[in-house]
C-alpha cells in the first residue's frame, strides 16, 4: 500500500523551494508570537489557551493542511504530469494512500511540532495545555490532509474550496451558527484535546465519541473516494 518512490517524489514536490518557505514561515510566526506574548503577559494558562486555540489550531493547522493536502496531488493533475505517474504499474489507491501519508506527515511536522514548542514557551505545559493542543493538531492534521487531498482530486479549484471550508465554514459559520460546529474538524480535534487536558480551559461542542467516529469516518471515506476519483480521472485541458 505504500510506495517509497511516490513518497519521495511527493516530498520533493511539497518541500520544494517556495512551498517550504511558506510552510516554514507560519510555524515561525507562531513561535515569534508566543515569545512576544510570553514577554508581554508572562505565563498564563488562559492566554496560552487563547493563542493556541485561536491562532494555532483555528488558523495555522487548516492552512498548512490545505497547502500540504492539495499540494500533494493538485499541481500534478493541474499540469498533466500525473499521467506519467498513473501509467506506472501501481494501484491508484496505493498512490492516494502514499500521498496521504506524506501529506499527513508534512502537516503534522509543520503544525503539531510548533504547537508543542509554542505551548512550552507560553506556559511550560501548565495544565497539560501544550500537550492537549499538540494532540489536537495531530488529530486535525490527519483529517485535514485526507479531506484536502480528496478536494485536490475532485476539483481544479481545490485550494479555494479548501480555504472556503477552513475560513468561512469553520471560522465564520462556526462562530455564528452553533450547528455548524458539529461538522467541523477543528471541534472534533478539540474534543480529543479536551479529553487530554481534562480541565475546562479546552472545550469543545462535540462529545468525544461522536468526534472520534466522525474523524475516522471522514478520513477513511475521503481517502477511499479520492482513490475512486483517481481511478476514473480524466485530464481536462486548461480552462
Amino acid at each position: 500500500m505504500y510506495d517509497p518512490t511516490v513518497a519521495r517524489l511527493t516530498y520533493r514536490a511539497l518541500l520544494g523551494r517556495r512551498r517550504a518557505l511558506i510552510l516554514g514561515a507560519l510555524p515561525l510566526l507562531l513561535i515569534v508570537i508566543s515569545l512576544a506574548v510570553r514577554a508581554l503577559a508572562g505565563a498564563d494558562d488562559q492566554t496560552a489557551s487563547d493563542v493556541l486555540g485561536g491562532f494555532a489550531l483555528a488558523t495555522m493547522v487548516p492552512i498548512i493542511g490545505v497547502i500540504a493536502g492539495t499540494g500533494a496531488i493538485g499541481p500534478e493533475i493541474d499540469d498533466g504530469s500525473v499521467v506519467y505517474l498513473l501509467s506506472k504499474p501501481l494501484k491508484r489507491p496505493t498512490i492516494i494512500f502514499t500521498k496521504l501519508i506524506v501529506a499527513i506527515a508534512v502537516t503534522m511536522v509543520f503544525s503539531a511540532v510548533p504547537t508543542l514548542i509554542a505551548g512550552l514557551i507560553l506556559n511550560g505545559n501548565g495544565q497539560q495545555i501544550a500537550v492537549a493542543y499538540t494532540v489536537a493538531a495531530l488529530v486535525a492534521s490527519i483529517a485535514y490532509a485526507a479531506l484536502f487531498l480528496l478536494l485536490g482530486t475532485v476539483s481544479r479549484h481545490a485550494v479555494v474550496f479548501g480555504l472556503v471550508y477552513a475560513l468561512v465554514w469553520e471560522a465564520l459559520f462556526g462562530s455564528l451558527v452553533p450547528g455548524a460546529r458539529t461538522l467541523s474538524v477543528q471541534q472534533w480535534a478539540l474534543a480529543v484535546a479536551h479529553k487530554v487536558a481534562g480541565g475546562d480551559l479546552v472545550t469543545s461542542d462535540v462529545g468525544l465519541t461522536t468526534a472520534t467516529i466522525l474523524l475516522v469516518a471522514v478520513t477513511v471515506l475521503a481517502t477511499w473516494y479520492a482513490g475512486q476519483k483517481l481511478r476514473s480521472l480524466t485530464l481536462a485541458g486548461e480552462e
Partner: protein
Amino acid sequence: MAVEHPVATPAGDQTRIHNIGYRTYDGPRLGRAYARRSLYSQSLRGAYGLGRSVKSKVLPMLLFVVMCVPAAIMVAVAVATKAKDLPLDYTRYAIVMQAVISLYIASQAPQSVSRDLRFKTVPLYFSRPIETADYVRAKYAALASALFILTAAPLLVLYVGALLAKLDFADQTKGFAQGLVSVALLSLLFAGIGLVIASVTPRRGFGIAAVIAVLTISYGAVSVLQGIAETQGSSEVIPWIGLFSPVTLIDGLQSAFLGATSAFPGAIGPTKGEGVVYVLCVLGLIAASYGLLMRRYRKVGL
C-alpha cells in the same frame, strides 16, 4: 538531409527578390493607450469571469452575491422595523465581510497574473506597443477596480435602501461617502498585496494559498496579540500592533479619520496622531507594491 553544396556563383548572378505584391499596413494604428485600455478592460472582465468559461464565473459571482446579500437583509430589516439607523455602519461593512474580500482577492489575483507567467505569454504582451509600466498599471487598476466593485456594491445597496427607508439624507450621504473612501483605499491596498504575491509564482493554487495566508494569518496574529494586550491592561499598544495587518490598517485609518467605530478590542482606535502613521503605512504599502511589481516585470518581460 541537406547536403551543403558549395554555391558557385556564376558570373552575371540571376538571383533577385521578386515583388509579389505584399502591401504594408496603412490603416489607423491604435497605439499604446488603446492596448493599455484593452488590457485593463479584459482583466477587469476576467476578474468576474466574463468572457471566460462558466466554471470560472461561479466563484467570483458567488462571492459577489455573498457580499451583497447581508446588505439587502439589513436594509429589509431596517425598513420593516422602521429603525432610525442602519444596523451596521457603512465603514464597518467591509471589515465584517473581510473573509469574503480576502477569498476574492486570493482567487482573482493569481488568475490575473499567474497564468500569463505560466504560459509565458508576458513576452507576447511586450511585443505589442505596451511597456512594463502599462502592463503593471493596467493589471493593478483592473484588480483594484474589481475589488472596488465588490466592496462598493453592498454599500450602494445599503445607501439606496437607507434613502428608501427615509433615513436622514445628510447623515446617510456622509456615511456613504466615508465608506466609499475607505473601500477605495482597501481595494488599492489589497489589490497591490495580492498582485505582488501572485506575480512571484506561476502556480495558481500556490498563489491563492500564499495570498490568503498573508491576509488571514497576519490578521489572526494581530487580533490575538491585541486581545492579549487588552486583557493585560496595556491598551496603549493596541493601535501600534494594528499596523501589522492589512485589515487592521484600514480599520485603524477609518476610525481615526473617517468616523468609524474601531473593531479593535475595547473599540480603542488610533488617535489622530497615530492615524497619520496609519495613512503613511497604507500609502507606503500601495507605493511599495507598485514598485515591486514594476521591478518584477522589468525582468519577466525579457
